[in-house]
């Protein structure tokens, strides 16, 4: 009897006060865990950037006595100046500045050519399939897995036969070739996801291969161009191997100079100059990331995930 009463009482109580946990406040244990984990990971990811920055602002005396994580006692920009314009490789002492402009001269044509070729190829594969086109696509994808070293030598021969070896255009071509697999995949997947009927409507409207590409497809493809562009900017800018193998010294990109500065130790390793040089070299892709990160995620969602 009393047992029944208790159940009833409990039942009544539960009818009055809502059941379940209350909506979480900002400091609920779950949130603390969530943000805690994120912050711990952020430290791991930010640490190197912090170390680079701090070290590049110290002078060598301070580096020798302090630890890598302590902030600079006295901020000096000398390492940056030295990395940019004074550091020596062999008998050339003009720092990274020369390489920077070389990298720009390599980047722009390579970027334009590699992205346009990839976009065009992706367009053919998505919208104008022909007998065997899928086979070629398969070959391209397999190409993504071939270690660069395997093709280094055959490419020397190909470029030599074309008379492009050592020229800027040879390097542009190499970048375009190695960019093809992954970028064609991105573009193709993105274009395949575009509504097929749009493409049909344009054909009925009398637009041809190029008309559809330029008037219909490209205006709809900003996100994937951003993704491909970002991947290419970082890839081309950060390249060392191709730059050093396929060009001559007057065209050496910035990374080659970075390697020269970091590796040509004259006396003591100047860590501060190395770090400044490292940061300077990474600056262009970093800036590109910080400004287009959001578009990047959106483009990845559209191009890489489907299909």
């Amino acid at each position: 009897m009393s047992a029944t009463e208790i159940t009833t009482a409990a039942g009544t109580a539960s009818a009055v006060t809502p059941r379940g946990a209350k909506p979480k406040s900002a400091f609920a244990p779950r949130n603390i865990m969530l943000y805690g984990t994120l912050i711990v990971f952020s430290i791991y990811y930010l640490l190197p950037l912090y170390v680079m920055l701090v070290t590049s602002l110290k002078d060598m005396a301070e580096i020798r006595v302090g630890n890598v994580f302590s902030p600079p006692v006295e901020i000096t920009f000398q390492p940056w100046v030295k990395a940019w314009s004074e550091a020596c490789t062999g008998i050339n002492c003009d720092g990274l500045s020369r390489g920077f402009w070389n990298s720009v001269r390599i980047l722009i044509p390579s970027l334009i050519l590699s992205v346009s070729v990839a976009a065009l190829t992706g367009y053919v594969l998505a919208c104008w399939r022909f007998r065997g086109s899928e086979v070629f696509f398969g070959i391209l994808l397999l190409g993504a897995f071939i270690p660069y070293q395997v093709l280094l030598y055959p490419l020397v021969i190909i470029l030599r036969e074309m008379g492009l070896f050592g020229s800027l255009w040879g390097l542009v071509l190499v970048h375009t070739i190695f960019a093809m697999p992954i970028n064609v995949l991105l573009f193709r997947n993105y274009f395949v996801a575009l509504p097929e009927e749009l493409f049909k409507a344009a054909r009925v409207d009398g637009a041809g291969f190029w008309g559809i590409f330029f008037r219909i497809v490209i205006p709809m493809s900003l996100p994937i161009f951003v993704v491909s562009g970002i991947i290419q900017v970082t890839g081309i800018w950060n390249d060392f191997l191709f730059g050093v193998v396929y060009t001559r010294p007057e065209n050496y990109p910035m990374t080659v100079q970075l390697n020269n500065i970091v590796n040509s130790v004259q006396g003591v390793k100047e860590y501060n100059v190395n770090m400044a040089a490292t940061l300077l070299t990474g600056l262009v892709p970093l800036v590109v990331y910080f400004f287009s990160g959001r578009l990047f995620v959106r483009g990845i969602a559209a191009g890489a995930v489907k299909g």
Partner: protein
Amino acid sequence: MSRARSGGARARPPIRLFRNFSSKLAAIPMVLVGLGVFVGGTIWTIVHSFTDSRLLPRLRWVGFDQYERLWSTRRWLVSIENLAVYGIVSLVLTMCLGFLLAALLDRKIRYEDTFRTIFLYPFALSFIVTGLVWQWILNPEFGIQSIVRGLGISGFNFDPLYNPDLVIIGLLIAGLWQGTGLIMVIMLAGLRGIDEDIWKACRVDGIPVWKTYVVVIIPMMKPVFVTALVLVTSGIVKLYDLVVAMTSGGPGISSEVPAKYVYDTLFTRQNLGQGFAASTMMLVTVAIILIPWAYMQFREKRQ
């Protein structure tokens, strides 16, 4: 109007090649790169792996000699083992970490943009830069070890780059730092593509969040995982710059990798035949992994 223009209607089918001629024209770069560079280059490499080419390629056949030597070379065996260890651990960790971070970011948190940028920015930096920075942080005299010792724990030892048994860990720390961001973005994009209703259904069914991820969400994201897998694997096979920048294969030969063996034999040792044999073996390995996958993809499409 359009009728007037094309009075002489074509009644016969045009030659196949010239139908949509522009598209065939636009496919030329793909055909040239695919056949000329990837297939051609690969065949060229395989053919020359059966020769005794030294500095310059020449066709003097030696059968399988290069392969016999390759598989009796300690450095190659160590390289393969390293790549296997690094590859498996890095693949698993990159996927897990990438997914974890993406899942955390997908919990409708504040400052998502900031966190995402923090996780992604290392991807903008080259392996050369990555290697340098981590070499610096892991340096026992300046980096983490000396800091912790400075805090009073004098017995603390953490010098992965100078310890043959730990050097792979050093590489992993740097490799994961650089590579997880991209995978996180891909996973995040995949998570965003999942229907909100799925989440609602799971909440109504009372399935805990972690279980929803494991049982419902991850199986739904199969294509995303495949994309991520392709990206990570193709990167692992090519692992080279990071090792060169961080350890140069050292200490000793404890962090050597196949790509470095290929590069060194081809160019430094001036033994093309041997280098080509090694790169052929790398290709074979890739093919063993890829062909079943490609076959499965192909069969799925058929059905």
